[in-house]
């Protein structure tokens, strides 16, 4: 089911964004004049072959890379105009990250990993505890809070990573190949969890994936090829 009806609020507006990387003296274009909008509460899958620029586009929307030209306006803020520390503050409040390789801190327990983003807030220890327990409960890992990443399976680690991504209650979840390192059963669990977060908590999700089965869970699929956005499904 599509959520792109005009009545919906536009959360993210990508306007004529271009990005190139320097390789020696050569400038290699990755994205060329990309424009599109993402509605609040949308679940978007970005697909495309390797090197098509989908991860770059995800990074730009998440505010961890900067555009060469164009603008990205999120909830009324042009993130290209923010300086580094304002952008860091904006990310901590508005974006939750889910990575292919989970990227948990190995010396911290599941609880401590989830608590990390909350250290940047003014919440008290008790309040942080409440938030962490809620997040771990959502991903059904309340019984694993004292486990270190090495003591968890891949699927469980990814669920901890999702708990870490949602613990600050961000508006946007960005996921870069979230099931790329998982077996089919675990991947299915993670995709169901993400769909639930979108459905029940209204999180706007942007997911980069190679896996058509993962993309099927999204409301909308956009494909990138050679830096151009050329298809929209359904």
């Amino acid at each position, binding site marked *: 089911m599509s959520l792109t009806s005009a009545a919906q609020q536009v959360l993210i507006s990508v306007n004529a964004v271009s990005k190139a990387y320097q390789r020696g003296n050569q400038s290699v274009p990755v994205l060329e004049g990309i424009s599109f909008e993402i509605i609040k509460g949308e679940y978007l899958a970005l697909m495309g072959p390797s090197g098509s620029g989908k991860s770059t586009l995800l990074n730009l929307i*998440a505010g*961890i*890379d900067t555009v060469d030209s164009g603008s990205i306006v999120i909830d009324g803020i042009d993130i290209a105009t923010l300086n*580094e520390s304002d952008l860091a503050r904006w*990310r901590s*409040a508005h974006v939750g990250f889910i990575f292919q390789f989970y*990227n948990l*801190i190995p010396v911290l327990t599941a609880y401590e990993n989830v608590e*990390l983003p909350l250290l940047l807030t003014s919440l008290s220890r008790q309040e942080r505890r409440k938030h962490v327990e809620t997040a771990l409960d959502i991903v059904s890992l309340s019984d694993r809070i004292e486990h270190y990443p090495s003591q968890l399976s891949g699927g469980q680690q990814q669920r901890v990573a999702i708990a870490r991504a949602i613990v600050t209650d961000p508006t946007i979840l960005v996921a870069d190949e979230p099931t790329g390192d998982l077996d089919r059963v675990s991947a299915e669990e993670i995709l169901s969890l993400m769909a639930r977060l979108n459905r029940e908590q209204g999180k706007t999700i942007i997911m980069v994936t190679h896996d058509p089965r993962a993309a099927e869970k999204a409301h909308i699929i956009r494909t990138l090829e050679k830096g151009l956005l050329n298809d929209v499904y359904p």
Partner: protein
Amino acid sequence: MFILKLLSRNAFRHPLRTLLTIFGITVAILAFGLLQTVVSAWYAGVNASSSARLVSRNSISLVFTLPIAYQERIRRIEGVTAVSYANWFGGVYITEKNFFPSFAIEPKSYLELYPEFVLTSEEKRAFFLDRKGCVIGKKLADRFGWKIGDTIPLKGTIFPGTWEFVVRGIYNGAELSTDESQFFFQWQYLNESLKKTVPRRADQIGVYIVGIKNPQATAEVSTAVDSTFKNSLAETLTETEKAFQLSFVSMTEAIVVAIRVVSFVVIVIIMVVVANTMAMTARERIGEYAIFKAMGFQAHHIAGMVFGESLFISAVGGVLGILLTFPVAHKFSQIMGNFFPVFQVEQSTLFMDIFFCMIVGIVAGVFPTWRAVRIKIADGLRRVG
């Protein structure tokens, strides 16, 4: 609290590497502390000098003597409160490796001028009354197991023959810096013997020790003493006790400088070792720092993590090094007591230990911090995969 937990866990992520680095810092700080203590021990005599005492010697050289008759003339100079004298005896007990400093002194005035040599009144009286009596320091007594009443034979090197002394007192130092390894006997015993054997060497003094009323007036009194004997057959050179002691130390200045240089080289080496450890650590964790930055942590947070870990490792190694310095210095002083009668780890050495520990931690953390802070999130995340 969370940051401390993260720092300590990060520090021991590679336990062997971290333990070896900590061990290296411990050894470096220990070596630095010991070498600095050796330098301090070298200057122990200088540090123990009193500002209220001057030393007058023959202006040509210490080898040449001064007449005993100078004592009264010095005493009459304004600002002088007391005058004593001493001759370096240089006696050998059985063999030369048993070296200790031995002096012929005028007992009463000498002990009055050196209140830091603490004797009971009975010991003093017994010493004053026995022409062959001697007083020895506690460390010296312990070293050879000498007790009051023991007879000690010394073989003279400057004054030939075998000289026998009876121990009449064992002094304790009033200060930690007081040398307790010295041997004093009556100058009269030496002089009377010389009158019989080598009369031309009798009634001669090695140095006069001059007590002064006002420690601020050392220059005036020194000049007055030297002026009194100007153009005489034995002109004097008067200086503060500290300057006199320093003149001995300056003879071995090159060794002191070498020890100091080595102690600082040790610190530089360990700085490079810790810097290498921290550089490896930061390189391995670049991806993690990118994740922290992605979550909203800023440059100062990342810098705190890297610097904190570097300082943590340095501090652990440093504290262990400082704690080990005391027992090792104690053992060292037992073994090397002959050469360093006063071997105390000074407060200034501890401050230097702490200072250099912090410097090692900071310098070792600079490059990895710079690298971690500058990493672009997208580049760092690419390395994780």
